[in-house]
């Protein structure tokens, strides 16, 4: 995976240059947001299960999807949905820490649409859940860190569309 630091170092190395000017400024900005990122990752990681419960409650729980014939019925499929939403939250948190989307492309989105369509999993409810997750996460971590998480949750949403 790439992260924002290596994605700045690698092109500099290609040219045999030190990190200077614009690239160094970008790195400075990243360092300055580091504490915000670490704090948010801590809050999210320590309350992941409750973030997921609340996300499901906000988006899917009271819809037809949890009834017989729906894609979150029976319990096995409900659990699979929780598992996938937890993956999304975890990888978005990684990407937020790294300030880089490449881990989402490599580890989450690559082949995901095909997997879901071959399993007959509808995409629209997942997107609803991810939208709800954005709200729940922002409530937990605050507006500034929430906006940062939105970037990566939106990246998953756009990748699923």
């Amino acid at each position, binding site marked *: *995976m790439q992260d924002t630091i*290596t994605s700045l170092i690698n092109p500099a190395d290609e040219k045999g*240059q*030190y*990190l200077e000017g614009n690239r160094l400024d970008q790195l*400075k900005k990243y*360092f300055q947001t*580091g504490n915000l990122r670490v704090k948010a990752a*801590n809050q999210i990681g320590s309350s992941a299960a409750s973030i997921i419960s609340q996300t499901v409650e906000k988006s899917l729980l009271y819809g037809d999807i949890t009834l017989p014939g729906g894609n979150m019925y029976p319990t096995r499929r409900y659990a699979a949905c929780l598992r996938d939403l937890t993956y999304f939250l975890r990888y978005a948190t990684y990407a937020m820490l790294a300030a880089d989307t490449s881990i989402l492309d490599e*580890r989450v989105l690559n082949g995901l649409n095909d997997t879901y369509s071959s399993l007959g999993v509808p995409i629209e409810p997942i997107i609803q859940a991810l939208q709800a997750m954005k709200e729940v996460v922002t409530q937990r971590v605050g507006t500034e860190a929430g906006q940062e998480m939105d970037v990566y949750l939106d990246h998953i949403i756009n990748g699923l569309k």
Partner: protein
Amino acid sequence: MSIVAKVIAQSDMSDRFLSSSELTQLQDFFNQGSVRISAAQKLAANEQKIVDQGSKQFWSQCSNTPSNSGDSQKTALCQRDQGWYIRLVSYCVLAGNSKPLEDIGLDGMRDMYTSLQVPLANLKLAMRCLKSVAMGLLTSEEAALAGPYFDQLIRAF
């Protein structure tokens, strides 16, 4: 790879969010951000000086070596490589991780210099001289961050 990518990969391997010790590691890294940047900037600004003074120190201890053979082309090449190693150390300081040095400058390095018939023992000494000049230009905080990467470089030869 940076320290950030490293702890993420570690967590990902075991399917979990970052542990509190990993988060603390990143917190410490970010807190040193401005020192890391000033250290890297000083190494960049003083590369030539570090190489020039380092070479003088080196030749005073080891005069019979390719860079001191009177062949200016060889000298230029050796000093160019030394400058490159300073640059790689600066990347490591910024990344909080020795991977830039390992991936760019150490993997295959021994084979390369052996084939170029540059004695590794001489290079080890040359790198030690670079370190000593560089350490003198950095504050103690900056030196504490850059020193270990120079040490790793010296050990590798």
